[in-house]
C-alpha cells in the first residue's frame, strides 16, 4: 500500500462521493478530484503503457504537462483517447481505461518490446525497413511500403472512435481590453490592477477552479479575497478555458471545455467552445512547469514531480506515498517535503547541492525530513511501481554509486521552466537565464506582458507584485493612469539551484528517459548527435523528442542540455525549438464548430425552390446552389427523364430555372465604355433593347467568364455571368472601377438575388410568352427578334425583363422577374407550357442541349483556355483595346497545335464514352495524349452518345481519324471521331426563327 486518501484536508468534498470505473472496475472518488487523483487515492499505480517500449507508466504530474497518465475516457462514439488523467475532472459514472496495451496496462503483451529496446533506438524502423538489404539495394522503398502498415499499427497511443461525433461544438467571439492568461497570484493581481485602471478584463483559466498555485499552496482566504476583488471590478473569469494560441493583432484562441466535467450535461450545451478573443493587450501569467531529471528508469510508476505530490496532498487530500525520497537541485522541493512529512510520510530529501542555509531546510528538518547533500537519484527499482531507489553521491566532481533507499515514491524537482509558449507563438524567442537555469521571455514590442512564474519569478508575494506591474504596464499602454510597480527580477530563492539534467556514471548502462511519452532516452539524444543530427530541429525530428501530445513540457530542456554537452557548447547555442499553437491539444470538434453536415457550407435556394420540388424536381448541387437536376415522371430513371426533357424542348417547349446565373447591374454614363474594355468583343455600340453574348478575359489573356449583357437604356445594363463565376466577376468589376479606372462613372450592383430567372425554350416558347404577358405584341418576332430585350409586364402586372437568347439552340427566352413573384410567375408559365405539351427541364437536359450545340460552360472555360481554344476567337474585336488583348497574343497562346474545342462522336455509334477520358492517338495511348473530354451526353436529336472536349490542333487536324477516348480505369478505350462542336443546327436557324 502506497498512496492513500487522508481523512481530512484538501479541496475535495468528502460528502459527495463519485462512482467511476477504471478498466471496468468500480472505484470511488470525490467531487473535486481529477481522474488522476482518484486513481492515486485508489492506489492504482500503473495507468498507462509507453508509446514504443510498452513500459508501465504512472501519474507523473498534476497538470497539463502530464506525460505518463494518458488514458481513454468514455465509450462508443464518445471514446476520447490520450486524455491527460491529471486534467480530467472526475464525475459520477466516468468510465476510463488504459490504452496502448493488450490485454491491460498492468499485463501488456507489447511489453516484449522493452526486451528488445536496445535495438529500438531512434530511427529504428526507417533504418531497418527502408532499403533493406539484400532485397532492396537500388530498388526504392518497396519493402518499406509493405512493412509500414504493420509498423503504423504497432505505433500510436489510444484509438479514436470511428463513429460520428454525437456532440456539438461552438465557435464564439469576444472582445476585451486585456486578456490575462492564468489565475494564480500573478494573474489575479494583474487582472485587478488592469481593471482598477478602468479596463475591460477577461481572465482565462485552464483549470476548473480559479486560483492557480493558490489552490495547493496558498492561504485560501487570500485566494477568495483576490477572486472577489476582480469579480467586483467586472473582470470576466473563464474557467476550463485554455488560451492555446496567441496570434497577430493580439488575437487569442481560447478552448473552453464546457461539459467534459459533467456526468449528464444538458443536450443544449456544446461540448467545447472555440473562442476567438480580440484583446488589445495580453498578460501571460501561465506559471512555470517543474522539470524532471534523467536517471535510470526514471519513468517507473511512482516517479513524480515534487510539486505534483504537494498538489495531491494539499488539493486532493492524498498522501501519495508512505516512504518518500525527494530529489532536488533547488529550494522549491523543501516545502513539499515538509508538508508530506507533516502528513505522516517518512521523507528523505536528496539535494544535489553541497549545502543550503538553515532558512531553507528549517521547516523540513522540524518535521523530521532527513536531508542529504551532494546526493541524487541514480536508478529506480520496481517495474510496476517504485520499490527502491539507488542513489548517487557526488565525489570529486563525478557521480558515484550511493546507498539504496527503500521507498514507494520518488519525487523529482530539477528546476522550473516558465511557460513562455504564448510568446513563442508571436515569434518572440525566449532567452536563456543561466543563473535560474531556464528560458525567460524576452522583451518585446508586441502588446504582451508576462508576469509571475511565467517571467521566472518564484514565490507568491513576488508573483503578486509582478502581476501588479504587468497590469499597470498594460493600463498605461492602453492610455490609462495606473500606479507604477517595480517588477521583481527573475529568481528569488535563497540558494541558487545547481543545474542538473542527467545522472550517469561510467560503466553503468541506465535507461534514462528525456521524453517519457515518446520513449526518447538520453542515449537516443547522443545517438542523434553521433549521427549528425545536431541542430535542435533535426534532433526533434530524428528522435521525436517533444513531439508527443505533451509537447515535451517536462523534458525538452534535458534534451537541449544533453545536446549542448555532446557538442561542447552552451544551451542557448543549441537553441530552443519554436513552440507553436496549440499549447494543449484542441479537439477537432471545437475547430470545426458548427460547420458540419448541412452547415459545412451555406446553401443557396432559388426563389422557385419549393415550386420546383412540388413539381417533382430531383435536385443537385451547383456550387452553393441547389438546382433541379431532372423532373422524373412516373417510373423514369435519370437518363430516361433527361432524354425526354431535351426532346420536348426541341419539339415543343420547356421551362428551366436559371436563377443561379449571376446578375450584375452596370449603370452610369460610362457603363458602355466600361463594358467595352472588360469584354473582348465590342459593346460600345450595343443598341438599347439588345443583348449581346460577351467573353471577358483575364489580364494574362485567358478566358475568365462569359455571359450575355442586356442594354436596358443608354446608361443601364444588366450583365449575366455563369453560376460558377458570379462572385468572382463582381469582385473583378469592382476592382477595375476602384483601382484602375476610377475616372469612369459607373456603378456595379449585384442583383442576382433580386431577380428570379427562367428559360423558356423550344419552338412553342413564343406562344407561351404571348399567353402570359399583358401585351402579346411586345414579344412577337418584330418587337423581340433574336437577341432582343424588352421590359414589360406579365398578366398579373408583374414587371419582367425578357431577352431572346438561347443556350439550348432553340427559339428561347430568358425571363427575369422580381424574386418574390417566382411562384406566381412559374404557375402562369407552366399552365401555358403544359397545355402546349411542354415540360420542366433540369440541369441534365440543359447539358444535353448545350453539348449538342457546342456551347461552353465552366467545364470548358476552366482557367487554362484562350478564346481561340474555345472556338470563339472570331468574336474578339480586332479594333478596340480590351483586357487581356495584349497577352492573349503571347507566342505560347497562339500556337497552331494548342487544344481546340471539338465535338466528339463514337466511331461505332452504339458505343458510349465518358467525360474525363483522355483523348489519344490510337497508336500512342500514353501520357497526356492529344486532348480530353469535358462533357458527354446522349443526344436525342442524333440518337447516340456525343461529347465535347479539346483536341490538339482542332478537328480539322484529325480529319483522317485515328483517335481514341482512353479511359483505362473505367471502361477502357473507345474509338472516336472529332467534328465541329456545333453538332445540331450548326447555322443557328432555329433560335433565330
Amino acid at each position, binding site marked *: 500500500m502506497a498512496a492513500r486518501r487522508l481523512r481530512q484536508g484538501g479541496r475535495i468534498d468528502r460528502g459527495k462521493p463519485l462512482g467511476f470505473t477504471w478498466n471496468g472496475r468500480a472505484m470511488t472518488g470525490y467531487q473535486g478530484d481529477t481522474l488522476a487523483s482518484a486513481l492515486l487515492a485508489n492506489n492504482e499505480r500503473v495507468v498507462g503503457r509507453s508509446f514504443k517500449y510498452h513500459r508501465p507508466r504512472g501519474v507523473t504530474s498534476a497538470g497539463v504537462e502530464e506525460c505518463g497518465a494518458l488514458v481513454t475516457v468514455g465509450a462508443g462514439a464518445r471514446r476520447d483517447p490520450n486524455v491527460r488523467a491529471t486534467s480530467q475532472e472526475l464525475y459520477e459514472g466516468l468510465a476510463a481505461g488504459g490504452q496502448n496495451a493488450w490485454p491491460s496496462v498492468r499485463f501488456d503483451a507489447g511489453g516484449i518490446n522493452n526486451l528488445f529496446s536496445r535495438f529500438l533506438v531512434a530511427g529504428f524502423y526507417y533504418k531497418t525497413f527502408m532499403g533493406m538489404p539484400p532485397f532492396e539495394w537500388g530498388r526504392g522503398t518497396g519493402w518499406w511500403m509493405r512493412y509500414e502498415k504493420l509498423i503504423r499499427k504497432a505505433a500510436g497511443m489510444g484509438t479514436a472512435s470511428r463513429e460520428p461525433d454525437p456532440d456539438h461544438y461552438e465557435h464564439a467571439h469576444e472582445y476585451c481590453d486585456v486578456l490575462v492568461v492564468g489565475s494564480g497570484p500573478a494573474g489575479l493581481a494583474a487582472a485587478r490592477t488592469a481593471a482598477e485602471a478602468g479596463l475591460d478584463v477577461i481572465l482565462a483559466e485552464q483549470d476548473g477552479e480559479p486560483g492557480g498555485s493558490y489552490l495547493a499552496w496558498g492561504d485560501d482566504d487570500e485566494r477568495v479575497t483576490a477572486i472577489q476583488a476582480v469579480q467586483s471590478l467586472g473582470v470576466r473569469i473563464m474557467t476550463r478555458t485554455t488560451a492555446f494560441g496567441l*496570434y*497577430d*493583432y*493580439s*488575437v487569442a484562441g481560447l478552448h473552453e471545455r464546457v461539459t467534459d466535467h459533467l456526468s449528464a450535461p444538458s443536450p443544449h450545451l456544446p461540448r467545447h467552445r472555440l473562442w*476567438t478573443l*480580440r484583446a*488589445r*493587450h495580453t498578460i501571460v501569467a501561465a506559471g512555470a512547469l517543474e522539470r524532471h531529471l534523467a536517471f535510470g528508469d526514471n519513468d517507473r510508476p511512482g516517479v513524480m514531480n515534487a510539486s505534483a505530490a504537494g498538489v495531491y496532498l494539499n488539493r486532493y487530500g492524498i498522501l501519495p506515498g508512505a516512504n518518500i525520497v525527494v530529489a532536488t537541485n533547488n529550494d522549491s522541493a523543501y516545502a513539499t517535503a515538509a508538508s508530506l512529512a507533516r502528513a505522516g510520510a517518512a521523507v528523505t530529501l536528496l539535494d544535489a547541492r553541497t549545502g543550503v542555509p538553515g532558512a531553507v531546510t528549517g521547516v523540513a528538518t522540524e518535521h523530521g525530513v532527513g536531508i542529504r547533500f551532494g546526493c541524487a537519484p541514480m536508478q529506480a527499482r520496481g517495474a510496476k511501481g517504485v520499490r527502491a531507489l539507488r542513489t548517487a553521491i557526488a565525489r570529486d566532481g563525478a557521480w558515484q554509486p550511493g546507498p539504496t533507499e527503500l521507498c514507494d515514491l520518488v519525487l523529482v524537482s530539477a528546476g522550473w521552466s516558465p511557460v513562455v509558449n504564448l510568446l513563442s507563438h508571436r515569434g518572440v524567442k525566449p532567452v536563456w537565464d543561466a543563473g535560474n537555469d531556464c528560458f525567460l521571455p524576452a522583451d518585446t514590442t508586441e*502588446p504582451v506582458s508576462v508576469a509571475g512564474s511565467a517571467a521566472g519569478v518564484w514565490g507568491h508575494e513576488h508573483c503578486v507584485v509582478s502581476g501588479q506591474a504587468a497590469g499597470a504596464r498594460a493600463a498605461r*499602454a*492602453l492610455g490609462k493612469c495606473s500606479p507604477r510597480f517595480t517588477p521583481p527580477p527573475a529568481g528569488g530563492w535563497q540558494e541558487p539551484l545547481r543545474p542538473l539534467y542527467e545522472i550517469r556514471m561510467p560503466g553503468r548502462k541506465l535507461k534514462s528517459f528525456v521524453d517519457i511519452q515518446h520513449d526518447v532516452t538520453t542515449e537516443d539524444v547522443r545517438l542523434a548527435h553521433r549521427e549528425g543530427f545536431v541542430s535542435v530541429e533535426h534532433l526533434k525530428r530524428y528522435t521525436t523528442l517533444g513531439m508527443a501530445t505533451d509537447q515535451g513540457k517536462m523534458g525538452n530542456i534535458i534534451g537541449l542540455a544533453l545536446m549542448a554537452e555532446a557538442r561542447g557548447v552552451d544551451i542557448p547555442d543549441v537553441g530552443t525549438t519554436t513552440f507553436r499553437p496549440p499549447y494543449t491539444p484542441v479537439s477537432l470538434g471545437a475547430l470545426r464548430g458548427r460547420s458540419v453536415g448541412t452547415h459545412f457550407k451555406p446553401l443557396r435556394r432559388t426563389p422557385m425552390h419549393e415550386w420546383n420540388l412540388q413539381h417533382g424536381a430531383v435536385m443537385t448541387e451547383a456550387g452553393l446552389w441547389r438546382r433541379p437536376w431532372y423532373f422524373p415522371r412516373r417510373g423514369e430513371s435519370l437518363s430516361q427523364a433527361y432524354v425526354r426533357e431535351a426532346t420536348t424542348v426541341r419539339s415543343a417547349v420547356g421551362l428551366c430555372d436559371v436563377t443561379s446565373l449571376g446578375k450584375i447591374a452596370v449603370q452610369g454614363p460610362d457603363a458602355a465604355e466600361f463594358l467595352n*474594355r472588360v469584354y473582348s468583343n465590342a459593346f460600345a455600340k450595343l443598341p438599347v433593347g439588345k443583348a449581346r453574348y460577351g467573353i471577358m478575359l483575364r*489580364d*494574362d489573356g485567358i478566358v475568365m467568364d462569359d455571359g450575355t449583357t442586356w442594354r436596358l437604356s443608354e446608361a443601364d445594363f444588366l450583365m449575366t455571368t455563369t453560376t460558377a463565376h458570379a462572385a468572382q466577376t463582381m*469582385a473583378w468589376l*469592382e*476592382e477595375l*472601377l*476602384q*483601382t*484602375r479606372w*476610377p475616372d469612369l462613372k459607373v456603378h456595379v450592383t449585384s442583383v442576382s438575388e433580386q431577380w428570379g430567372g427562367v428559360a423558356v425554350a423550344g419552338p412553342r416558347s413564343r406562344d407561351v410568352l404571348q399567353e402570359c404577358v399583358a401585351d402579346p405584341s411586345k414579344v412577337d418576332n418584330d418587337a423581340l427578334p433574336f437577341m432582343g430585350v424588352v421590359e414589360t409586364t406579365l398578366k398579373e402586372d408583374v414587371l419582367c425583363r425578357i431577352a431572346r437568347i438561347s443556350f439550348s439552340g432553340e427559339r428561347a427566352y430568358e425571363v427575369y422577374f422580381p424574386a418574390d413573384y417566382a411562384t406566381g410567375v412559374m404557375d402562369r408559365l407552366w399552365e401555358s407550357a403544359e397545355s402546349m405539351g411542354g415540360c420542366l427541364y433540369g440541369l441534365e437536359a440543359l447539358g444535353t442541349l448545350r453539348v449538342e450545340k457546342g456551347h461552353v460552360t465552366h467545364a470548358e472555360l476552366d482557367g487554362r483556355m484562350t478564346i481561340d481554344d474555345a472556338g470563339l476567337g472570331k468574336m474578339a474585336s480586332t479594333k478596340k*483595346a*480590351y*483586357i487581356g*488583348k*495584349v*497577352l492573349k*497574343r*503571347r507566342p505560347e497562346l497562339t500556337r497552331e497545335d494548342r487544344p481546340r474545342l471539338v465535338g466528339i462522336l463514337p466511331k461505332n455509334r452504339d458505343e458510349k464514352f465518358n467525360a474525363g477520358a483522355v483523348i489519344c492517338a490510337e497508336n500512342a495511348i500514353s501520357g497526356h495524349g492529344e486532348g480530353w473530354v469535358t462533357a458527354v451526353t446522349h443526344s436525342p436529336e442524333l440518337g447516340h452518345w456525343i461529347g465535347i472536349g479539346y483536341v490538339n490542333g482542332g478537328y480539322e487536324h484529325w480529319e483522317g481519324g485515328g483517335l481514341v477516348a482512353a479511359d483505362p480505369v473505367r471502361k477502357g478505350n473507345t474509338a472516336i471521331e472529332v467534328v465541329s462542336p456545333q453538332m445540331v443546327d450548326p447555322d443557328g436557324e432555329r433560335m433565330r426563327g
Partner: protein
Amino acid sequence: MIRINCPFCGMRDHSEFTYGSDAAVRYPDLDASADDWTKAVFERENLDGVVLETWHHVHGCRMWLIVERDTITHEIHAVRPAHPEWATLLPGGPTTKEPRS
C-alpha cells in the same frame, strides 16, 4: 489573425477581406506593349518589409483598399481606399492610421 482597419467600417478581421494583389503595380494602358503587360502581370518583387497591397472588403462594404503591410511582422501601417477620390472624401483625410495595442 491580421485585422484591417477599414476606413469605411472600422477594425475588422481579415476573414472579411480577400487579398487582391500588389498595389505598387501600375497597370499599363490596354493597348500598351506586350513587354509592359508582361512586367505588370507576371513580374513581382518578393520584398521583406513594408509593401503595398490591395485588399477587398468583400464581406463588408465591398471597397477595394490599399494596405501598407509589413510582410515580416504583419504590422499594418496604413489603410486607404484604392479609389483616389473616395480617399479624399473621408473625414480625417485619406489615410487610416493603425492603432496598435
